[in-house]
């Protein structure tokens, strides 16, 4: 696909006998794409396969139109990778480390040093750039990992859990950086995370992985939009039979906090108010009082829950 940053074609990856990716076929469009999934879903494995760290048992991976198996160096020269775990070169300060990464990526020494200063200022480490990396806090280590991934100006960024271990303010700033890169600086990125709000804030598209397989993929707006209408319902009376009746009527129910049930009504809306009438009718049949009924906006959490629940 011409508009895809990354494509996987029937890719299977296994660690010994443990399958990590099972016959995955998916295309990541350009722009900011969230790679979602519960822990152990295969997100990091997918990124590592795209980097060439692990060889797939079957299938073909393409990054920016280049076959990963055939041209791994060219692929990696156009990629920036921010790993999930802490990682640095021991004994270096931040600016030396980032410049070193630039040189490893093919930048001449002087340019690498200049870029190192620039990206360190960009990620907010300008004042701390001469400090040893061993002295950095967790939040600063996340930023330095982003800086080393950016120093050679990659066309595509892989960000693996970029807000891990960050305090709320740091997390917000990191998300702003990611959003800025994707939407203002023209850097395509794949953000792997299990934090749905992070993905929802920064990305336009999402790929949901579960148990090594694609659960769903597409634009976040599309996924949230037409497939279901969502209502928040609170009732007084026997709750379980009411939920069972809604499910029997073809609706999907999700319990949330404070006795509120989120009801997903599938299919097209024919008459305005029809959904509310159906819910009330079921309540009447079950002998429960509807105390609260209002339209709810579907969130990425709903998309995720639906995808992972269905897969």
């Amino acid at each position, binding site marked *: 696909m011409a508009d895809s940053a990354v494509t996987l074609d029937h890719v299977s990856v296994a660690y010994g006998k443990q399958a990590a990716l099972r016959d995955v076929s998916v295309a990541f469009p350009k722009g900011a794409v969230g790679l979602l999934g519960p822990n152990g879903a295969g997100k990091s494995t997918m990124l590592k396969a795209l980097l060439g760290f692990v060889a797939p048992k079957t299938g073909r991976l393409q990054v920016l139109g280049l076959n990963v198996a055939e041209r791994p160096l060219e692929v990696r020269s156009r*990629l920036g990778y921010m790993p999930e775990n802490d990682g640095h070169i021991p*004994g270096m300060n931040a600016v030396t480390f980032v410049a070193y990464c630039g040189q490893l990526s093919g930048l001449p020494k002087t*340019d690498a040093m200049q870029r190192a200063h620039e990206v360190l200022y960009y990620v907010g480490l300008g004042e701390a750039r001469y400090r040893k990396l061993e002295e950095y806090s967790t939040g600063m280590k996340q930023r330095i990992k982003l800086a080393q991934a950016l120093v050679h100006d990659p066309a595509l960024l892989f960000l693996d859990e970029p807000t891990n271990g960050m305090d709320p303010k740091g997390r917000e700033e990191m998300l702003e950086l990611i959003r800025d890169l994707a939407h203002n600086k023209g850097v395509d990125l794949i953000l792997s995370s299990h934090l749905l709000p992070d993905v929802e804030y920064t990305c336009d598209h999402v790929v949901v992985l579960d148990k090594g397989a694609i659960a769903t993929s597409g634009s976040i707006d599309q996924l949230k939009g037409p497939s279901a209408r969502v209502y928040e319902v609170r009732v007084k009376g026997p709750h379980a039979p009411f939920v069972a009746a809604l499910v029997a009527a073809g609706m999907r129910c999700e319990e949330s906090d404070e006795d509120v049930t989120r009801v997903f009504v599938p299919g097209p809306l024919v008459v305005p108010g029809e959904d509310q009438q159906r819910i009330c009718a079921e309540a009447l049949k079950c002998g429960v009082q509807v105390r609260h009924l209002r339209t709810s906006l579907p969130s990425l959490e709903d998309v995720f829950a639906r995808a992972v629940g269905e897969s």
Partner: protein
Amino acid sequence: MSPIHDQSYRHYEGERRALGRAWSVIARTGIQSSLSRRWFAVLLVVSWLPFVVGTIQIYALTLYPQVNQIWPVDAHRFMQFIEQQSIWVFFVTIFAGSGLIANDRRANALQIYLSKPLLRSEYIGGKFAVLATFLMFVTLLPALLLLVMQVMFAGNLDFLRANMYVVPSVILASLMRVLISAATMLALSSLSKSTRFVAILYAGAIFFTNAIYVLLVAITGSTRVAWVSIGANMENVTDVMFRQPPRYETPVIVSILILLGLLAVSFSVLERRVRGVEIVA
């Protein structure tokens, strides 16, 4: 009106080097990093003391030819010089080599390195070049310079003409020590995240195999068992390189095979351990 300079993220439009040269960046940075440790620089300087002694000996010989009767400068003297340097090879290997990969493993740096456009072989090559450079600095370079001194003080090429094999022998004997020591140390360094543990492993590999050899000689009364010692195998091969009778009864071909086997095992370990992901079976 002056142009507004964008101080946020900017795209890079400068030149990029051809792929496949990252090993030289790793090597250069590794060498600079090691040299920045003062005590290591001191160790390198001290390792040239035998060269100074050798130079004085050659100079004394030019002034007083009778010195050759008690302290001769012949082809054997150059072999002896290389073997004397083995102690410095040992220390330099320990101090410069034990952290080369172990430190990267401890700091999770392998995933950073291997996410860049470089092959695993380039990473290993760069690290190897760091250690090999220092080892050549304490073996090959002083040995060749000692030969140059001999020619300079003698004022003629008679010694070299009479011992044509000395130059290739010096080079081969030095490179053998560099290759074996660097490959073994890199392999051990890839096995652990602790520099100290790697240093102990390496010292153990050298001393333990020698201790076993001494024990076996005491039991069997024969030096045919010299193949168990890494050092003895290198000495055996060095003897042949300098056209000397092998000092151990172990056939030289066996010593060569043992050393080649050690190299093969070392590179096999490196191939398995230097990866972007650690797979625990």
